[in-house]
């Protein structure tokens, strides 16, 4: 059987696993730190409640003049420019059917000229709070569903439950990368988390597992084929074999997403970017984290890991 495999040498990915763990840690830790310092994430109106109002004026409006109009109505507004002549205003909830909105519009027209309403989103506080809890719940539910499915799909493999857990750890890795990046972006560039972000996050989770499963699948198959070999060696074989495929798949998705980020409309840009970051991370974690974790577990190295012992190179 080895004769057929001679065309590509087996890469010792597993051997270098601690380097990969280190790399992951380096990526995650800054994001994690940013997440833990309040406010971890810059939440948009979808979760905090409030109003998001985007207006397009006929000529460049002085943003400094917009804010006082709102203040006179008792609204502490955040104003930023979103285009050449458009502004985005963020303030507390305004009811469209109350005269307040009409009055503000009138005042704005008097002071700054005519404008077109690009969008108006007003979310009440209860709905906002609900959305947050739903989002968290959705992520948890997705993870649980995937864990159960993996347990079932790999039921005939010894220690099948480990596969589910390692896949989930890889998934958490990806989620943390994405959340961390956006936590930092929130501080630096003021990018907000809205419900579309949660959608992207859930998609990343789905895709990350998709990727990991292909690798695990191959491990499962090779464990039968290479029955006599060490687990580490089996995983190495599997990784080498699936490397081409994993990279190819991720590349195709990355191509389409990059096209979206670069050429797509502004509304989907951040959404596509979130997906892009998540999927790159997903590919990385499937190859360099998930399977290694299985090996670590199998070899009983978990204890050593937590005691800070980091052997470099293969142990077998």
């Amino acid at each position, binding site marked *: 059987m080895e004769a*057929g495999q*001679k*065309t590509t040498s087996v890469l010792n990915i597993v051997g270098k696993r601690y380097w990969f763990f280190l790399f992951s840690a380096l990526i995650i830790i800054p994001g994690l730190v940013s997440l833990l310092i309040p406010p971890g994430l810059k939440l948009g109106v979808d979760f905090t409640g409030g109003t998001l109002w985007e207006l*397009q004026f006929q000529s460049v409006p002085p943003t400094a003049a917009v804010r006082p109009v709102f203040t006179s*109505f008792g609204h502490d507004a955040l104003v930023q420019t979103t285009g050449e002549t458009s502004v985005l205003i963020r303030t507390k909830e305004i*009811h*469209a*059917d*109350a*005269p*307040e*909105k*009409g*009055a*503000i519009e009138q005042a704005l027209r008097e002071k700054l000229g005519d404008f*077109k309403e690009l*969008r*108006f*989103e*007003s979310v*009440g506080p209860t*709905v906002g709070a*609900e*959305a947050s809890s739903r989002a968290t719940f*959705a992520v948890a539910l*997705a993870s649980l569903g995937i864990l159960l499915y993996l347990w079932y*799909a790999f039921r005939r493999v010894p220690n099948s439950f480990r596969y589910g857990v390692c896949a989930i750890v890889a998934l958490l890795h990806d989620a943390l990368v994405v959340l961390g990046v956006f936590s930092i972006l929130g501080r630096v560039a003021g990018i907000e988390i809205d*419900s*579309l972000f949660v*959608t992207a996050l*859930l*998609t990343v989770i*789905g895709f990350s*597992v*998709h990727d990991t*499963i*292909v690798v695990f*699948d*191959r491990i499962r198959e090779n464990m039968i084929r290479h029955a006599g070999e060490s687990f580490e060696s089996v995983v190495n074989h599997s990784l080498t074999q*699936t490397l*081409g*495929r994993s990279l*190819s*798949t991720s*590349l*195709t*998705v*990355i*191509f*389409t*997403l990059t*096209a*979206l980020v670069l*050429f*797509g*409309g502004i*509304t*989907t840009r951040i*959404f*596509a970017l979130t997906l892009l970051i998540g999927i790159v991370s997903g590919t990385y974690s499937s190859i360099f984290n998930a399977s290694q974790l299985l090996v670590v577990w199998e070899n009983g190295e978990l204890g050593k890991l937590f005691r800070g012992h980091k052997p470099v190179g293969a142990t077998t």
Partner: protein
Amino acid sequence: MLVGILVVAAAAIWVALPTNPGVHLDLLGQTIDHDIVVHEGLDLQGGMQVLLEADVQPGVKVTADSMQAARQIVERRVNALGVAEPLIQQGEGNRIIVELPGIKDPDQAIKTFGETGLLEFVDAGSTYLPEGSAVTTSLGGPTTTGAPAATAGAATPAASPTSAASPTPAASPAPAAPPTGAAAGSTPAPTPAPSATAQPGASPTPAPAPKAYNTVIQGKDLKSADVAFDEYGRPEISFTLTDEGAKAFGEYTTNNVGRYLAIVLDKRVISSPVIQSPITEGRGRITGKFTLAEAKSLAIQLKYGALPIPLKVIQNRTVGPTLGQDSLQKSLVAGIIGLSIVAAFMLIYYRVPGLLADLALVIYTAAVFALFKLIPVTLTLAGVAGFILSIGMAVDANILIFERMKEELRAGRSLRAAIDAGFGRAWTSIRDSNVSTIITCIILFWFGMSFGASIIQGFALTLFIGVVVSMFTAILVSRTFLHLLVDAGLVHDLRWYGLVEGPARPTPAEKPA
């Protein structure tokens, strides 16, 4: 098999093309007149989505029947607005979701269908009640503070007819001060209420005493209500009464000539005319400072009756049309670019099978888009993004199969056997990995459903359809094409299949290059 695929592909392309004329047939006496178009979501064509919730005191139970009734009334009012394809749905709990694509005046629309719309003709005796003042009637008093109804701007709905005249510390926005002096309501105060801030410059209103004015007739006594114009061309409402209403009204006006009859909408006074003479024919006019839009709004409300429970807006998303169209163009361009890059990559890396995969990909794109048109799936920008994403993922199944094939070929199998083995072995991987995406889609759909976020649902649905169809095209279509090619004996040199070097030993039926 091939014929089947070609037929489906052709049909899909025909449906997917934008110039599709639709289906117009006369079939056994039944006409099918159906345009096949893309249904654009709110963020593409502009429009409004509003989440309404029953506005009752915490702890007060709202029956399913009254929610149902409220929903129906909202639906009728919305339909009267004349919006194409509105959506009115019962949401979770005491909520109603209203979506109005392409609405021109979203704010006025909310006033039309969201306000309670309870009209009362009230015996004000010798008191002139100024417009805009809040009153308590024999049917109840205002429970929320807000700004005046049906004058310059409208109010969040006020009392439910059965509540007592007790003010709630309501969570309403600090009312602005429209300069035309309509007072913000200070509620009749049996309890020290945190009333709305007094407006400087507004005409001082006599604080409505806790006196409950007697309601003579109300909205449900009206038989019809329409917009009309007075001699100066100003809008007003002309109405007729039901027989009972006409009788009660006739009696009352006969006995009360010279007294004030206040016309009250949602506990706010619209106008306060004096009864000049008895009105026995059961018809009349309501005048007030209406704009045409407001008059139309009021007429709609009166036509379909007052809401049994007041509703408040808890979420409002309005998108203007310009934003959407621009993004759509760009996204489509991005999609085409993405598709081209993926196709090129497949061709370069996998060569012949890659080319076939590209063909399958084109069929895939047409099929998915055709499904969007047929089901129909409301397409949003996120949905388009999902579609583009699924294009990238669609090739994944093919890649899995081809990589397997390469392995089998390296191991020395015959071309045909390698193809079959490739497809067979890869199936478990494809199935398992797509299942996880499908689970995510289901959860996303539920997540969006809970607060009417049709955008998220649109994304989940497009991704789901994309994944399912991709499984189909990758396996069925590619395999058919490949088999065809091999059977035709066209391409045998394994280098065409992406192998860098030849197999370990010569394979049968192979012509050495």
